[in-house]
Structures are given as C-alpha cells and as structure tokens.
C-alpha cells in the first residue's frame, strides 16, 4: 500500500499531541502544529476518514470555509505545507556539491568574521 503525506485538521477537543499518541501501524507523525493540525504519513486514508478525531484531511487543497476557521499562523503553516506539496520539482543551484564548492559560499561564516 502506498504511503502518502497528508495534513489532518483535528476535531475540537483533540489535541495534536494527544492524537499523535494514537498513531498506529501504517501511520506516522511528521510534525504537529498545536493544537489542531498534524502532518502524517499514512497507508490507509480510509481508516483516517472514519476516525472521529479527524475533522478534515488535506491533500492538495483546502476549502475556503475551512481555511477561514484557522488562525493566521495556522493558515501560514497549512499554506506552507501545501506549497511544499504542490510545488514543481526543485531546480537546485549547486545540487549535491560540497558546501564550499567554487562559486559558492558555505552556510556558516568563516571564523574571522565573528
């Protein structure tokens, strides 16, 4: 069964951390945005759809009325996740090159700059 990543909006009263404790076979938590959002890898989406603790399952989009119920930071987290999920394949500069490859600056400053 193929594993896929989904974002779950939980029902009222179900804390994200509490929900993650219920993770079972074929269900893995990647991240939580307390109190009511969970990103998970799942095998069986139907099982989650039957779970009373799950209010809405986001895969590629989310209805406006659901979005409107979220706080500003929740919306930002969700939209970031949607962007990550739906963005075209990355074209990475310097893909797989060492961080100090010619033409690039490593992500940490040289010692004498601090």
């Amino acid at each position, binding site marked *: 069964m193929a594993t896929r990543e989904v974002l779950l909006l939980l029902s009222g009263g179900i804390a994200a951390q509490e929900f993650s404790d219920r993770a079972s*076979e074929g269900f893995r938590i990647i991240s939580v*945005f307390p109190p009511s959002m969970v990103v998970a890898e799942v095998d069986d989406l139907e099982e989650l759809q039957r779970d009373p603790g799950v209010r809405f399952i986001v895969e590629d989009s989310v209805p406006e009325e659901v979005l409107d119920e979220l706080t500003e*930071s929740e919306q930002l987290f969700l939209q970031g996740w949607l962007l990550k999920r739906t963005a075209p394949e990355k*074209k990475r500069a310097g893909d797989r*090159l*060492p*961080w100090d490859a010619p033409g690039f600056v490593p992500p*940490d400053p040289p*010692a004498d700059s601090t």
Partner: protein
Amino acid sequence: MAGDLPLAESVVVHPRADSGIADSLTERINDTGGRVLHRFGPQVLIGQLTEGTRLQVSDLHGAVAAAARNAPDPDDLADLDDTGRLGLQALRLRETPGFLRAKAHRPLAGKGWGTADAMPPDAPSGTAGAAPPDALSGTATALPTQGTTTGTQSLAPAAALPTSARMTGVTAVGLIIVQGPTADLQFTDAERTKVVAEVQNGLGWLATMEPGGSVSWSYEIRVVSITTTKGPDSLTFAEKEDRWRNPVMAALGFSADFAGVTAYVQGLRNRLGTEWAYCAFFTKYPIGHFAYASIGGPRLVMDNGVDGWTIENMDRVFAHETGHIFGAPDEYASSGCNCAGSWGFYGKPNTNCESCAPGGGTSCLMRANDWAMCSWTPAHLGFGPVPLMAKFSGKVADFSGGSTAAGAQAVQSTWNGGVNQQFRADPVGGGYYRLVSLSSGNVLTVADASTADGAKIVQQPWNGGDSQLFRPEALGDGYYRILAKHSGKALDVTAASTADGANLQQWTWGAPENQRWRWIWGPIRAKHSGKVLDVPAASTASDISVAQDDYNGGNNQQFRLDPIGDGWYRIVAQHSTKVLEISGASTSNGAKLVQGNWTGGNHQLFRPEPVENGYYRIVAKHSGQALDVPNSSTASRVDVGQWPWNGGDNQRWRL
C-alpha cells in the same frame, strides 16, 4: 538542589538594600530550622529552607522566598543591586539542566589533582600558568554562551544547551519571522509561506533519517514587527544580530538580549511539552552571514536569500543548520574540520571530514548540498540508541557466542551491555536502514537473500543488497516491527522462544509478540507535566529518590523494562544499572520511588497497565499502588512515590 550539590536550596530576595533586613531574615530562617549558605549583598540570601520556613519568611519586610528552581529573574527586580543580581543569575544558572548535566559528567571525576591526564590546578613552580582549555573539542560542557558556528571550527563552539542535546522524539521549533519598519525589511505573504514550506521540507527530511521513525517536530510561528531601522555597515557580526534580535525578544515578552532567546526556547519546550526545542530567526536585516547557528542551540539565523544557493536550497541549509543545533560539525574541507574531536551527544569524532577521511569521505548533509546522511552524522545528532529488545522476552539481538565472524547467526540473549549487542542504524533512504554491529562492523542480513519464512538472520559485510536493509515501523505501543526490504517479512524470534540463544529469523508479519521490538532505553514521562523520571545528579547510590524533571537525554533518565514474568517488570536505570523500587518495601501511601540493587523483591516489580492510548499506570506489585507525582505538581525535582490509583494524569506515564 542547585548544581550537583546534595542540597535543597532556596532563595530569599527582599526589595531594600538594607543589611539590617538581611540580618533579620537570616535570624528568622535560623529560628525555623533553615540555614543561610550564601549572601549576595544585602538583598539576596540563599540557603537550605523548608517549605515552612519559606512561608514564614515570605512577605517579611516584603521578601519573596522561593525554591531555587523558581528563583526570580533578576531582570524583573528593578531595585536589585549588582551583587544580588549576579548571585541570582548564578543560582538560576546552577538550576539549568545543562549545568546539572555538565556536573553529572565531570571530566576526570574522582581523579587526583596529580593525575597524568591533566594539569594540576596549581601551576608548577617556574611556569607561567596552567594549560588553556582545548578549543577544538566539540563536547558541550561549557556554560550557556552566545556563539556561532564558524567555518574553521577553530573557535570553541557555543555551549550545547540542554534544549537540543540530541535529535530524538519531538522537538519544538519556534519560527520567528522578523518584520522591520520598511518594505525592504519585510517578508511578503508569499515569502513567509515559502519560508515555512522550506523549513517543513528540511525538517521532514531529517525526521525520515532517524531510525525507528520517532523524530517529529512541533511548531510555533511568530511574525514579529519591530520599528528598528537598519544599522550602519560598520556594525560587527554580533552587533548586527543584536540590533534586530533584542527588540524582537522584547516584543515577545522576553529580556532584550541573548538570554531572552534561551528563555523563549525553554518556555517553548515547556508550553508544547516536547523533549527538545530551538528557534530560528528569519530576517531581512543585514546579518553577519546568510546562515549560522549555535552548536547545541538555542537558535539559528537565516536571511531570505541563502546567498548563491538560492532560496530553493533553503530547506537543505535549514536542515544543515539544524544539524549544528543538535551538535553535528561541518564536514566540508574549508570549514577547517579534522577527523578528531568529540562531537554531539555520543562524543564521536568527525570521521567524515573531507580533509582527512579516505577519499574525502562520503556525501552528507553536513558536507554538501545533498539529501544524504553519512554514517557519522547520525551519531553526532544523537540518533538511537539501538540495542533491539524483543517485547515478549525482554532479550536483545546479539550474535551467537558474541561472534564477529561473517555468517554468524543472530540470536536473542539477555542484555549485558556488550558491544556485540549494540547496533548502529544507518539510514539509506526510503525509510530503510542498515543495522551495523558495533562489535564487527558487519550488518544484519537475511541469509542468502532468501524470501522464505524461517530464513536465518546473520551478519555479513555490507554489500548494499536489499536483504541487508530493514525498515522499522511503529506499532503504536512503543514497539516496532522491523521489515526486511527484499522480502517484506518481519524480524522474528524462532518459535517464540524466550530462551537465551534462540535464533532470529524472518517470518511473515502476523502481529505476534515475538515480532515486536523496541530500542531498549527510553524515558518514562508523566502525562500531567511532560517531565520524566530522573535519578538526581546521575547518582549511582542506592536509596536515592527518583524525581520528575525536564528531559535532558541523560542516561539517568533512560530506563529499560525487563519482563520478569506474569506481566511484571523490573525497571532498570541505564546510568547505574540499579532497578527502581519502593523505598523500604513500604506499602504506605506516598512511599517514595528510589533506585536500589536488584534483589527480586516484589517492591522492585512493576506492571505497566494501559489506561489510554500511549499511557500506562505503573503498578507496584507489593502494594498494588500506582506511581504518582504528588499533588499533580508540575515542578521539577519533585520526588515520585506510590499512591492508590485515582485516575489522575499525574499517575499516567508514557513509556
């Protein structure tokens, strides 16, 4: 107790710089059975005070009395003199998990001053002084300081705060997006979304690299607007950060300095109830370098451009910097790395350093812009531990006769701490791992790449085949099934034997107990407080009370449950190998949980009984009572005891 001293210290602070008041308070403390140990100026007294003494002293001359753990923040006390301020700051520092951890692992503990391993505290006559500290070590025993990673690593790294000692379990991530007063200092809505997406991508990758799939992230996002303008180009590296960071911390309600960052991160961990925490600033203000972090936390800083790597590599740069947060060193040549040192939670050398590793090492996130994890960075990050214990037998994976020979049969045996019972899990992608024996360097292999039920598990040199790859999948009860990639079959103990020496094999997954495994050491966490069982100061003495405390990853917070029979377990502390027991085999309400030598007594046997998803009550056999945090206290250093089961969250534990 502050630091690793066997004292329950308290602090008394009063608002007037009047020595007469301090004398009066000292007298009252003495009269009520207390003792003043330190006096910092006329306003701060530190000593041994009972709760009753604290109550009697509080409000006397306007004084505030508190346990050391709850010592007030000197920044909140406007009238405090400098001496008192320093005394309070030092007391608070001694209460930090990092300080305690450092004290619990003192280098050369117990050695005489004249040991050949170190210079004595007094310089020999004729010399100018003692040797300087080793600035190249990556170990984290220094006190919290502000610092950054540097390309050469020739500077001492910033101290590893206990908020990110190792990458295990759930980590709180505070994303702080800084908004200045002008458009060039502000992130657009689209840019904010992009930042969040990149962070999720980078951390999602890191989570998949951890054996057992137990790493996850809990987020907080703060978009903070400040009115500070850009500073002049002449600002130093540190001044550039101070300029925007300090007002940001003030806007978040913390002290406007680096200490505010530490306080924010510690608070974040408590609020989200996670094991670890750090924060990441995203800013368009000029900064000293486009990305940097403190080794060991608590913060990393990034701009929105990611220099020539472009924003499409923000996820990898973020993951790379997060590696530093958890103690991993750079591995690219121009960083000045070398293959020595002592890095990360396990204090391992930087063996994959490009400058000295054979062939320049292998590709790895800490070396290159690549989604690749070498064999050494997992140890730096503190992944694991990886002795594998079978649920039904309590025995661990081993090799017959402790053999290191290729082809040796894998078996189960009683845990003895031997290196032949320990495995390193190297992630190879797709959720699969090779399980490398620490004694032989060989990997667990399904013999002859058989796909049949009953095929033996042996050790063989790594050949990259699918019969050497395993995928641990969480089963929701703290255990995992471990599936061989080539066959999809599960790691299994032959005939469900509980005997030492029983062979390991693969078998079609059927959900039985003899196909369930766990990494054997782990914390025991109270539901109501999120704190874990802790043997204070990593004491190895018997009859030491076990308390709840913030998780710091120390071995004195790691326990193993050995099944003894009929559903009863003994609970072994990793650091001392002693077992938990109820003091004096008491059956009284409130009797304390302590550690002691294993005798097999019923007061050393416990049964975890599931009471809700993921949580257990832990019942003592001799009394039938449950482990309990008194009064549902959420404070640290509260001794744990037994109490009749009442269903409270202070009696529910996650194993």
